[in-house]
C-alpha cells in the first residue's frame, strides 16, 4: 500500500503541472549557498572544517484549477555539498540530499469550510500533528459541529541509532470531531492510530533496546477553547496514550485582555516522559533522558503592554519542576516598529536559574544557569533589506572552559525587481563548541505570481 502510494504520488503531481501553468500560479524559489568555517574549541578537539552546501527550496501553488475549487501545492528542497564533510552515515550530511516537504491537490467547497486533500500533507487537528502520504478531509456541520479525518501512509524519517528503525508504523489514520457554540466555546475530541510500530533491532546476545519504553503511536485527546467574555480566554489540550493507558500531556493557556493595550497570560504544561515519548525511539532511549519515569510541570505567566502603536513591552516568567530539580526563567522583550513597519527592532533579556542537575555536565558544583541577551534591527524597503542581530549567552559556570557563547550576524539584500531579491548574511561567533565560527550565506529569492485571472 505504502509503495503504491509513493509510486502514485509523483505522477499525479507531475500530471497536474501542465494544468498549473494555466491556473493562478505562485512560484517561490529560494537558493542559498552557505560557506561555514568552524575551528573547534581545544576542549572539544582541534579539527577545522569548511562546509559549502547549496540548497534550493522550491514551492509551487496553483490555484483555481478545474472548476476553480481545485488547487495544487508543493514545497521541497534539494541540497548539494561541494566541500568534503565529516559525513555521518544516516544523517543529513550527505553530498546530495532532498525532500518533498509537502505536495498535494486540494479541493475546497464553497460552504462549511469543507476541503479534501490528497498527497503528502501535514495534519494539525487537535492533539494530532502528523505528516502523511494519503488523504484528509474536513467540514463544518450544522448546529455547531465539525468533523475531520485523515488516513494513509506515514512519512518515514531517519533510522535511530542501533534500533535500525525510525519507530513509525507504515499506516496511520485519525481525525477530530468538534462542537462550537457561537464564538464562545469549542470542544474537540481527536485521535491518531498508527499501525504496529516496528520492532527495534536486537544485537545478538544483547538486551532488547527501549524495553518497555517504546511502542505503538496511538493517542486520543481533547482540546478546549472558552471565551466567556472578551476579557477571558482559555485554550489547551490533554492527550492520553492508549498504549500505556496514562495521560501523556496537559497544556493550557489562560489569556486575560485586561485592557486593549494590556494582555496577561498564564500557562500550565504537564507531561510524563514515558507516556509522551512512547512512540519515539530517539526520546525513549536511555542515552537521551536519564529516566523515563520522570514527569514535568511548567507553570508560567507573562504580560504584554502596548506602550503605543509602535512599541510593545513584554515580561515573562516560567517555573520548571522536574524530578531532577527545579528552575526558573524570567525576563522581558521590547519590540518596536516604525516607518509603516519598514523599520523593526527588538531587545530582550532572560535569565535561567537552574540547579546543577540541569548543567551541561551535571556534577557537584556545576550550574545550568545562564543569562541571555539579544538585540536586533531590520530595515525593509522597496529597494533593499538590511538587518543586524546579536545574541549572547553568559553561563554562570564555564562550559568547556568558556563562560559565554555569542554570535553576531549582519544581512544585506537588494530587491533587483519586485520578484527577485539577492541577499547575503555573514555571521561570526565564539562558543564552547568552536573558538571561532564564521558563516557566510548568499540567498537568491524569486517569488512570482502569474497565470489566468
Amino acid at each position, binding site marked *: 500500500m505504502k509503495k503504491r502510494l509513493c509510486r502514485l504520488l509523483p505522477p499525479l503531481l507531475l500530471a497536474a503541472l501542465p494544468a498549473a501553468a494555466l491556473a493562478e500560479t505562485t512560484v517561490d524559489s529560494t537558493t*542559498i549557498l552557505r560557506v561555514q568555517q568552524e575551528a573547534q574549541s581545544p576542549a572539544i578537539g582541534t579539527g577545522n572544517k569548511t562546509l559549502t552546501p547549496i540548497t534550493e527550496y522550491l514551492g509551487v501553488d496553483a490555484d483555481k484549477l478545474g472548476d476553480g475549487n481545485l488547487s495544487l501545492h508543493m514545497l521541497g528542497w534539494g541540497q548539494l555539498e561541494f566541500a568534503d564533510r565529516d559525513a555521518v552515515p544516516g544523517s543529513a550530511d550527505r553530498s546530495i540530499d532532498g525532500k518533498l516537504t509537502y505536495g498535494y491537490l486540494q479541493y475546497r467547497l464553497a*460552504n462549511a469550510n469543507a476541503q479534501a486533500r490528497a498527497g503528502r500533507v501535514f495534519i494539525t*487537528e487537535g492533539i494530532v500533528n502528523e505528516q502523511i502520504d494519503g488523504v484528509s478531509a474536513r467540514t463544518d456541520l450544522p*448546529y455547531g459541529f465539525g468533523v475531520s479525518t485523515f488516513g494513509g501512509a506515514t512519512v518515514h524519517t531517519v533510522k535511530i541509532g542501533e534500533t535500525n528503525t525510525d519507530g513509525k508504523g507504515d499506516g496511520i489514520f485519525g481525525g477530530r470531531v468538534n462542537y462550537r457554540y457561537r464564538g464562545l466555546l469549542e470542544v474537540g475530541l481527536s485521535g491518531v492510530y498508527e499501525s504496529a510500530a516496528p520492532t527495534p533491532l536486537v544485537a545478538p546476545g544483547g538486551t532488547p533496546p527501549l524495553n518497555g519504553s517504546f511502542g505503538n503511536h496511538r493517542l486520543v485527546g481533547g482540546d478546549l*477553547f472558552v471565551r466567556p467574555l472578551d476579557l477571558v480566554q482559555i485554550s489547551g489540550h490533554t492527550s492520553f496514550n492508549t498504549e500505556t493507558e496514562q495521560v501523556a500531556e496537559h497544556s493550557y493557556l489562560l489569556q486575560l485582555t485586561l485592557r486593549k493595550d494590556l494582555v496577561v497570560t498564564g500557562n500550565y504544561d504537564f507531561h510524563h516522559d514515558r507516556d509522551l515519548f512512547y512512540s519515539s525511539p530517539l*526520546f525513549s532511549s536511555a542515552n537521551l533522558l536519564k529516566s523515563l519515569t520522570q514527569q514535568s510541570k511548567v507553570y508560567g505567566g507573562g504580560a504584554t503592554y502596548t506602550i503605543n502603536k509602535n512599541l510593545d513591552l513584554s515580561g515573562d516568567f516560567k517555573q520548571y519542576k522536574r524530578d*531532577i530539580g527545579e528552575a526558573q526563567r524570567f525576563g522581558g522583550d521590547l519590540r518596536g516598529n516604525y516607518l509603516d513597519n519598514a523599520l523593526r527592532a527588538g531587545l530582550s533579556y532572560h535569565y535561567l536559574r537552574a540547579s546543577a542537575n540541569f548543567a551541561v555536565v551535571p556534577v557537584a558544583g556545576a550550574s545550568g544557569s545562564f543569562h541571555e541577551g539579544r538585540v536586533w534591527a531590520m530595515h525593509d524597503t522597496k529597494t533593499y533589506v538590511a538587518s543586524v542581530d546579536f545574541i549572547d549567552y553568559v553561563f554562570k559556570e564555564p562550559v568547556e572552559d568558556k563562560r559565554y557563547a555569542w554570535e553576531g550576524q549582519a544581512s544585506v539584500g537588494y530587491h533587483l525587481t519586485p520578484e527577485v531579491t539577492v541577499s547575503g548574511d555573514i555571521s561570526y561567533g565564539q562558543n564552547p563548541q568552536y573558538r571561532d565560527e564564521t558563516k557566510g550565506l548568499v540567498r537568491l529569492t524569486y517569488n512570482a505570481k502569474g497565470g489566468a485571472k
Partner: protein
Amino acid sequence: MIRSRKFLTLLALAGLSFAVAACAQYKALPSMPASHPEELASGPVSCAECHEDQQKGTMKPFASFNHSPAFIKNHRFYAGSDQAVCATCHKWSFCSDCHTNQAAMKPSDKNGDRPDRMMPHRGDFVTLHKIEGKLDPASCYRCHGRANNERCVACHR
C-alpha cells in the same frame, strides 16, 4: 414486537428529518475565503483592527487571532482547530519554515534576513540544548520526537 417496530420507524423518521434539516442548513454554512481579499502589511497584524464585530456563526472572535506576542508564542493552540482561519493569510510554506519533517538547515539560518520572526535555535543552540533538553524535553519532542531528528542522531545514537 409491533411496538418495537413502531419505535424503530419513528426513530428512522426522526433521523431522516434531522438529516434533511442538517443538509438544508449545510448549504447556509459560510466558508472562510481561500485568501485574504486585501494585501496585508508585513509583520504581525491585528485582525480586530479591521474586523471588529464582524464575527459570524460559530466563528471565534477576530480579536482572538490578533498577532500579539502571546498569540505568536502560543500559536499551536490555534493551529489545531482554526486552520481555515490561518490559511486565509498564510501558505503552508510559512508554517514549514519551522515545522517540517526533514530540514536542510536551521530555520534561523534559512531566514537570517528576518530577525523579527520568532525562530527556534538562534545562536549556539548546540551548547544550549544540553541544558534546555533536560529542563523541558517536551518542547524538543514537539518538533524532533518523530521528525527532524537526523541531526540529533549524529550524537544521540
